[in-house]
């Protein structure tokens, strides 16, 4: 069988990749995609733990279901915001969307 | 069937070959059988559709190739498509353009895993059976958008977007309509759902569910009266307007394969699957499935195309509330009967 540590490292790598994307992408939709990668990494961890930890309740899987649902809602709202933004700015690059300076 | 498999595996085990080898062989065999089945069945369906349309419009349709009522016409068409030059438009995104038909076909192929042709004639009786079909079928939409976008043609992009919007809107009532059956059986496994219909087919208690499913399924297949995505008169041919030759053939194949899948699922969920007197189970299953396919073709050549706004209204304001009503009433009855 595959040891738990493999899943944990994979998840950490996925999380880091997503974080890198969220920090560097210019396109707002690109950032949203990177965020989804991070959520997936967390979910992978949840499922792996719920498989390997000695317990009967499927808490990890339940948690993952909720995370997926919330992520979907967040993506829908995010894309609606991006569309509204595009209508006004004619761009979806976050560094060009900068009216306020401080 | 399973015994034969076990014997097959044990033979390899005796020779000392790692178990992955016979597993791979079995997988390959199953996949080729499914692809073969799809191709043959699709050719038959295309010929059939042409004949039905012709007879509805009081003509004969293809009559020459192969002798009796032009039965070999589809084979000839297929060979023609395969031999045609493979054109990739200059402005296209080559990688995505090449990937799109494969994605669409993979989705169509994967759905065959859970079709229960008979009590033991199923590739894999997954315990999430119905859910597997629902989730895998959404991959088709991704493939369609890939195809539309990569063609770099505004008609294909429009067609792809329309198709995606339609598929997403009709997927919701489709899923909810199936819930009635799943609640009654208490399982997602296809085999168990069919087994539960030994005495009474679900089409009787779940009649509204069946109608909603059928309507939504036709829309999922982008067939008339819901073929706005490919409406020839306004969009040329929708998302696959730039495709030709082999790649076009794959799209065509996938489309008819999907049609077969939704009909087969309808048979399994509502029409009692393989249950029936006298004839062998697999034959019953095929007969029922082809009956539904016939209905779909019949509708196609009888009804007019819906407008986009009508299409959305029907999906969200008619089918979805009805589907929820059906689910609620089913749940209520189940609770009352304990």
């Amino acid at each position: 069988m595959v040891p738990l540590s493999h899943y944990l490292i994979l998840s950490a790598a996925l999380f880091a990749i997503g974080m890198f994307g969220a920090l560097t992408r210019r396109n707002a939709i690109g950032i949203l995609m990177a965020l989804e990668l991070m959520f997936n990494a967390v979910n992978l961890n949840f499922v792996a733990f719920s498989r390997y930890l000695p317990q009967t309740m499927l808490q990890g899987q339940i948690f993952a279901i909720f995370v997926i649902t919330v992520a979907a809602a967040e993506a829908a709202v995010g894309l609606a915001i991006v569309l509204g933004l595009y209508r006004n700015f004619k761009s979806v690059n976050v560094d060009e969307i900068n009216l306020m300076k401080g | 069937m399973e015994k034969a498999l076990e014997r097959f595996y044990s033979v390899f085990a005796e020779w000392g070959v790692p178990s992955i080898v016979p597993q791979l062989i079995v997988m390959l065999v199953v996949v080729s059988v499914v692809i073969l089945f799809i191709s043959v069945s699709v050719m038959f369906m295309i010929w059939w559709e042409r004949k039905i349309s012709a007879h509805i419009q009081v003509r004969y349709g293809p009559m020459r190739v192969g002798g009796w009522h032009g039965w070999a016409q589809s084979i000839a068409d297929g060979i023609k498509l395969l031999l045609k030059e493979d054109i990739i438009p200059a402005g296209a995104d080559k990688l995505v353009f090449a990937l799109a038909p494969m994605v669409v076909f993979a989705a169509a192929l994967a759905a065959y895993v859970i079709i229960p042709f008979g009590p033991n004639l199923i590739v894999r009786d997954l315990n999430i059976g119905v859910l597997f079909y629902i989730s895998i079928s959404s991959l088709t939409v991704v493939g369609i958008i890939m195809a539309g976008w990569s063609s770099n043609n505004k008609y294909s992009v429009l067609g792809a977007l329309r198709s995606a919007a339609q598929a997403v809107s009709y997927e919701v009532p489709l899923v909810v309509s199936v819930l009635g059956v799943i609640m009654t059986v208490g399982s997602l496994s296809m085999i168990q759902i069919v087994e539960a219909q030994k005495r009474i087919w679900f089409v009787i208690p779940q009649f509204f569910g069946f109608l909603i499913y059928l309507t939504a399924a036709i829309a999922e297949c982008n067939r008339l009266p819901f073929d706005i995505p490919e409406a020839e008169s306004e969009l040329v041919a929708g998302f696959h307007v730039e495709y030709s030759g082999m790649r076009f053939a794959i799209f065509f194949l996938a489309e008819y394969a999907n049609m077969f899948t939704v009909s087969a699922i309808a048979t399994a969920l509502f029409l009692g699957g393989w249950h029936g007197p006298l004839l062998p189970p697999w034959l019953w299953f095929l007969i029922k499935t082809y009956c539904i396919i016939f209905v779909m073709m019949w509708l196609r050549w009888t009804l007019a195309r819906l407008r986009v706004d009508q299409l959305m209204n029907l999906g969200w304001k008619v089918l979805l509330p009805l589907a929820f009503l059906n689910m609620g009433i089913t749940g209520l009855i189940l609770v009352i009967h304990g």
Partner: protein
Amino acid sequence: MTQAFNIADLSTAAPEVILSAVAMLILVLDFIAPRGKRDWLGYLSVLGVLLTLMVVIRQWGATRSAFSGQYLSDPFALFFKILFLVSTALILLMSIGYLRGEGVDRGEFYGLILFATLGMMFMASAVDLLILYVGLETMSIPIYILAGFLKRERRSNEAALKYLLMGGFSSAVILYGIVMLYGLTGATGLKEIASSLTAGTGMFSNPALILAMVMLAAGFGFKIAAVPFHMYIPDVYEGAPTPVTALLSAASEIAGLAILLRVFLVAIPGLQVRWTLLFYVLSLLTMTVGNVVAIAQSNIKRMLAYSSIAHVGYLLIGLVAGPERGISATLLYTLVYALMTLGAFAMVILLCVGEVKGERIDDFTGLAQRSPMAAAAMLIFLLSLAGVPPTAGFVGKLYLFGAAIERGYVWLAVIAVVNSAISLFYYMKVTMAMYMRDIPPAGLALSPSRPLRVALFVAVVGTLAIGVYPGPFLDLARASVAGLW
């Protein structure tokens, strides 16, 4: 293990049930409301909030657990629920006139504010990480939408996008912290996590646990706008519609603080030595950066944004000082902070008429001549924010800094006092504009909205009342933290 959905659970969660029913009712009534006449939806939401508030107050004193122990209605939760509901009621009162002024004719605005409040209430009652996360998102997602509610306004679009992206990022970080806690203990209930952690020896120097703690602190740091996780806050505050800005600073940040307190105090109290240090640094950075940068601002919403960052720094002092004095001081200060911030934002809305948005500090020029009452109210809020007696801000700071000194964090208290002095400087800029300069020739218009005046009145009375007679409020805060750990 299996526990069905029953009436007892529902009655324990009655406030949430009522509020969600009101919110959905608003959404439905919005369809039948005639165009241009949607103010009554706002009043109806205020009524709903007050009704919920009454139910919450009736529950005071009892500690009840529901839904398989994931939901807890204890004094701590009830205190925050009262705070959120009062804030929401005031914000709703402010919104009615504001929406009319901006030409937004949508009842969903009120519905979404109620949904956000509902999320906060669940956060306050959450003793399970799952319900905590879900509550957090139920608060955040409506606020993302509300921040972008002025669709034609580019700054509003920008605020919504920035808030959503940062919010999503911080949620992912929080989730990673949660999953590590789950992996370590196999539980998601805060109490279960705590007991399972004490069971294992050597748990508290476990790198995985420390990683979880740091991730949670960083994620919550985003939500409460602590430095260095504050970069997006000024832009969001400036761009969002002003009532939403008020909601963000007076309710959403406090809700973040509530779950932060609950998680760190209940689930990982064993790590207190480590997280005290962490929050010491965060607190120091947050108040200093917030106050210093606030000086340079000419936009009052932006200035208040930095000021609220600074106040988060003060609030964290209580967490550093620890139970029980420090935590009750933090709770008292959340109440004070919510009232005075709401008042300040209500003033911004009062000046938001037509082309004048009331957002530049110059917009306040000559307010004392135009309306001495309004200027006096603003003065009270500003003095309170700076911490000058006899206002609530003074009392709050006194208890906070006192708690810090009592625990030996003298330097932290000294720096906090210095910071308060700095803050006086930029608050006085507004006062100067109001009192020392003449009314501009173009005149100075005030919003005619009556509910807004009610909200202002309540905020003024509250700020003064806590300042003059803090006893009962302090008792309330003390009672709320009793039995938390």
